[in-house]
């Protein structure tokens, strides 16, 4: 069931591979888009802003974390989908897409892995920023003063603090964001196209696990085994996300012991 790639519930075929691939693809695109800007922004917030600027930026960040996913979905439909359909898709398809099938603009609707990835990237961005900021702030002030006294530039100081104190924290932030993105349902469901196939291109539609559950659960219960297939999907999601969360915790615990 986990590896089968055919999804024909009526014939009793419940291959999960397209959905797992969809989840992984969407999450990977989101991570690729958001990790570097998120970490850099978190560092900037912690190291380069004055107290007054922080007092404004930090509450804004908290507000963003609270915005519900359906709102991000609406934004995705209103802004991201047309953007991909009319600008990004044709542009990348005509350039990178000619040589790499991964970037081929095969699906002119815009509802795609990339759309879901972009929406997710924006959703988990504040999460990464908040965790990185917290970790960086917990680095001792004396360390910065020692480095600056040696004539290090601010950026060299920051680099050293990240490398020596913040590495595990940054890793934890990434793992946490990954698990959040992996389990996100509605925002993804609204923009990903929902076609049960293993996506071959970032412009292809996909069908991640949470979307599968949301769309089909509670319906079609007359089909034999359907319900247990859905429960299986939910269980799979649960296990993956819990493994990621526990990994993130283990990283943080190890970091606290090391410090």
């Amino acid at each position, binding site marked *: 069931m986990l590896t089968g790639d055919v999804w024909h519930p009526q014939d009793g075929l419940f291959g999960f591979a397209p959905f797992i691939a969809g989840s992984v693809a969407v999450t990977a695109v989101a991570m690729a888009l958001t990790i570097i800007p998120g970490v850099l922004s978190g560092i900037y917030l912690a190291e380069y802003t004055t107290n007054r600027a922080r007092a404004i930026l930090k509450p804004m960040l908290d507000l963003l974390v609270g915005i519900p996913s359906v709102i991000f979905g609406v934004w995705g439909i209103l802004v991201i989908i047309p953007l991909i359909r009319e600008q990004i898709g044709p542009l990348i398809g005509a350039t990178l897409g000619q040589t790499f099938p991964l970037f081929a603009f095969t699906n002119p609707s815009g509802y795609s892995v990339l759309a879901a990835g972009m929406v997710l990237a924006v959703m988990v961005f504040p999460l990464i920023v908040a965790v990185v900021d917290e970790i960086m702030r917990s680095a001792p002030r004396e360390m910065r*003063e020692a480095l*600056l*006294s040696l*004539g290090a530039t601010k950026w060299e100081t920051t680099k050293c603090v990240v490398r020596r104190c913040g590495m595990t924290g940054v890793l934890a932030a990434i793992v946490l964001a990954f698990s959040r993105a992996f389990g996100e349902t509605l925002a993804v469901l609204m923009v990903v196209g929902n076609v049960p196939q293993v996506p071959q291109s970032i412009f292809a539609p996909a069908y991640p696990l949470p979307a599968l559950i949301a769309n089909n659960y509670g319906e079609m219960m007359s089909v034999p085994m359907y319900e247990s297939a859905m429960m299986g999907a939910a269980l799979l999601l649960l296990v993956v996300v819990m493994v990621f969360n526990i990994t993130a915790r283990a990283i943080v615990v190890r970091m606290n012991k090391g410090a």
Partner: protein
Amino acid sequence: MRSLSVRNLNVWYNGQPALKNVSIDFPSGQITAIIGPSGCGKSTLLKSLNRLQETNDQTKVNGQVLLDGANIYDARMDVTEVRTRIGLLAQKPFPLPMSIYDNVAYGPRIHGLAKGNLPEKVQTHLQAVGLWDEVQDRLKAPAVGLSVGQQQRLCLARTLAVEPEILLCDESTASLDPISARGVEELLRSLRGHYTVVMVTHDIDQAKRLADHVVFMWLGELVEHAPAAQFFNAPSHPLTQQYLAREIG
């Protein structure tokens, strides 16, 4: 040997004055000790001398600090260069979270000093602070594993390794046992003539042992500045007399 002088320096924390109109000339190649009761602004003064003070958000600095006649607070001055030329040894030893070797090598590395002969350079500076024999076979071990006294000497080696022209020491022996303290004192004494040293101390006897000149501060103001012999034998200001007699502070 560079000259360092302070002109009308004022520092505020959240609008509260911590240094009030301080002006001092630090004689080149000699050791100047700054003494005064806790909270009178000694650390603040030292940190203002290498522009570390301004990294504190709540602080405002106003005035001039002249290094060879050039104001280090001038907009055209490069902060990192100022901090490289004026080394500061902090009040509490803080080994960087890396190996003993890397602690000393960090400065020369970022400044591109000592291309190719970095290990020798590290060795020279560790020898200069008398740490080489104790750590030569665990150079790759984390520096936090050292004793506090060893840490302070490592920090001194680290500071000297960037080849500063002026050395600021903030109560560098306060956290040390008497024997390590003597070691660091010896070291500072050996720097006389090579560096202009400004040191803060709570220990009047230490100031007597080391200093060529003494500055006495009180509530953010400079009270008296005199050559050591004159300062201890014939202090002119009544506050200084009381402080030396352990009546105040």
